């Protein structure tokens, strides 16, 4: 699937929920299924700044696709990063660079995130795009 198709899929999943509790429960479940970063990459330099919880994100290039793995000490943060990884992992650097990110607003997540968490979310997206830029220059 293309990034856009995955994003539309996520938007329609979130449309089914009636209230924030259901959304949060879903995010928490997603957090539990996050493709977890290998311990050797859980280093200081793979930490994303701007998050109140710790987030480690790592990308590797396999057959010209970027594969993301991550972890966080907070489960809701893990769920959010799981949504991003589902969207952007296994795509080419170029597609990631050109992808729109407004699906985050469309799933109505931001209004239930505290400002620091919303900032953390923006930092995660930025870091994903930075990885893509780095790999496309190689």
């Amino acid at each position, binding site marked *: 699937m293309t990034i856009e198709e995955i994003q539309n899929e996520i938007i329609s999943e979130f449309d089914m929920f009636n209230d924030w509790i259901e959304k949060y429960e879903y995010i928490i479940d997603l957090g539990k299924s996050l493709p977890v970063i290998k311990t050797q990459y859980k280093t200081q330099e793979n930490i994303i700044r701007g998050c109140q*919880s710790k987030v480690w994100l790592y990308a590797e290039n396999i057959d010209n696709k970027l594969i993301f793995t991550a972890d966080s*000490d907070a*489960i809701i943060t893990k769920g959010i990063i799981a949504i991003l990884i589902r969207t952007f992992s296994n795509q080419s650097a170029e597609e990631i660079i050109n992808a729109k990110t407004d699906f985050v607003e469309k799933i109505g997540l931001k209004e239930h995130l505290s400002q620091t968490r919303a900032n953390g979310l923006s930092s995660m997206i930025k870091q994903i795009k930075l990885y893509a830029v780095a790999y496309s220059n190689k």
Partner: protein
Amino acid sequence: MKNTAFNIVSIRNDFPILNSKVNGKQLVYLDNAATTQTPKVVIDSLVSYYSKINANIHRGAHYLSQKATEAYEQARKKFQKHFNAKSSNEIIFTSGTTHSINLVANGFVNLLKSGDEIIVSHLEHHSNIVPWQMLCEKTGATMRVIPMNEKGELIFSEYEKLLSNKTKVVFVNHVSNALGTINPIKEIIRKAHKFGSAVLIDGAQALPHFKVDVIDLDVDFYVGSAHKLYGPTGVGILYGKEKWLNKIPPYQGGGEMIDEVTFEKTTYAKLPNKFEAGTPNIGGVIASGVAIDYINKIGFENIAKREIELLDYATKKLLEIDEIKIYGNSSNKTSVISFNIGSIHPYDIGSIIDNEGIAVRTGHHCAQPIMDYFNISGTIRISLSFYNTIEEIDSLINSIMVAKKMLS
């Protein structure tokens, strides 16, 4: 004159914000250690200042300037009286606790030399650590740390061992913002003075809970923020003994703090203006004076009684939750409870209960050394004010139970 009946309904009506809804839910504000809410009399005083007497102080000969100057200086007198300071020259208005501490730390740059020591406590807020580290870098002085115990109390016997003739300044908070521990500052000050050391007490978390008597404490510097004292943001207080304030140089140069200026040399104004360069937060200072009147009218005895009741109830209820761990178990603490539940990240609980309208603080509370001591990244902290209620604590507990269920 006696007005000791504590009427919670009327008190809550004094605070317009307490009736608001957040995320569609009734606000439950339990983050009073970060900032206290503002009573209507204080808000009114800001409005009245800007509507009626806004003018620059100490400068104009005109009517408004005189009115504003009088009101500003009257606020200074209120703080002098509140602190039982000898002279209103000893009360300096700043922009906050952080500014006050930087002002004092900077004042010691020329008084310290390599080999001198300064003493900090393990329980400090970053703003009572970093300015002093900067001082050490500039002077070559060394920082020593008073250690803490499992209960979140300072180990006094270790403090005594750190003191020596090399000690030049001791800086400790009156109350820990992260744990609520009340430190034995009178004893800390007395011991430091035996070695001729100056003492700065960070009273940011103490001022909303008790009346401070600087003469009884014999403290050299005592600092706080009006926004944690039911006043507006942007106003800080620095009490300093006159002999110390005369000894340390001004922090900032500018208007208002001078006596005479030529390009060759400037002589500084007398206290307190020496430390109040530029146009201060005039409206904010005046409103802070109104806040002082407001809490004195409620009475610190009533405040203490009420807050202890709330603290005991909240502690009891929280302890009924499985796997809860409370950090900071001193028998001598203010109405602050810092805790974690099992291995759940504090931020997860904070985010979920925020959706229920409940405002708490999560994270390291600008006190990373304390978190390191307990080997945690942060806690959930509730901090109660006299205007909080038993019902609000019940809502907190219910929401935590919902969050816990969702997260485990």
